[in-house]
């Protein structure tokens, strides 16, 4: 079964960056994209999504609100919130919905740690 990662960011450039890094790290994963939280929730209802990478600062619902919605819908899903906004509250809120906080600009190294953890979690859930 292929793994699908969902990238949610209002910035096309930011989505391209995550896509590029994901392709390098997990070439066999499928990638789905959404430009805002509503589109992301619709997508999750329509197709399989295993891992989510969410921008924090977006028009409409922000990435942490989306993370909470996703968490309610999919209790076991690995979720990362990506932001340059490294304020304690943001990081704490990410943690409170069991999401990983990844600092922006996203690096291959930063993403690799989250992805290996996510892959492990998915394998464990599948077995």
């Amino acid at each position: 079964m292929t793994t699908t990662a969902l990238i949610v960011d209002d910035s096309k450039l930011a989505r391209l960056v995550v896509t590029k890094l994901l392709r390098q790290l997990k070439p066999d994963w499928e990638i789905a994209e959404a430009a805002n939280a509503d589109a992301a929730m619709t997508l999750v209802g329509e197709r399989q999504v295993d891992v989510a990478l969410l921008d924090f600062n977006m028009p409409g619902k922000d990435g942490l609100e989306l993370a909470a919605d996703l968490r309610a819908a999919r209790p076991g899903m690995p979720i990362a919130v990506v932001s340059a906004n490294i304020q304690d509250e943001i990081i704490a809120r990410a943690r409170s919905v069991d999401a990983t906080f990844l600092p922006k600009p996203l690096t291959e190294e930063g993403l690799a740690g989250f992805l290996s953890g996510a892959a492990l979690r998915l394998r464990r859930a599948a077995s």
Partner: protein
Amino acid sequence: MTTGTVDLTELQRDAFTELVNIGVSKAAASLRKMIGVQVLLSVPAVEIVSQAQAARMIGEREASELVVVQQDFTGAFGGRALLIFPQENGRELVRAVAGEDLSAEEVLELEDEALTETGNVILNGCLATMANLLQRTLSMSLPEVIRGDGPRIFQSASDEGNDALVLFLYINFAVRERDIRGYIAMLMDLPALESLKVLIDGFVERAIGETES
């Protein structure tokens, strides 16, 4: 409103907004360290407008007198970065930064210094992050505090009259549990924008390994 030479492609505009977003987010995190409570940010808006329109956009939102901390930057591209609040909010910010126990006189006495320092942390933090991401050095002037209404403040940003087009970027910010809100704005004239475009293309290329033609 825009001319062919100053138009940014969708990806360039997007990349610039993202660049500013990263810069401001880092700066907000520094401000949070100074005042101990969370700083909330809006999504940045980037527009190419005339100097006069930029003044109106701020002026229409704020009827009251404004206090502005501004810093000019020069280097690979140049412009002016501004931290703008309603005058009353400026004092509240001083209390947030310098402490609750200050008397009204002390706040007044410290106000410019505290505003300068706060502006420095936010504006410098934002610009330095952007410069790093663009792999260029920017020189920043010392922060300057000015007071007045929207048109007056933006008038002083240009000597050549109000018709010159500028790249105008603004972000709302607010401080949680405090009656503090304001804007971070950036103004860039067109030659600066031309050089910026080249740098943005480089940034995009490094970020995703290709540019959109």
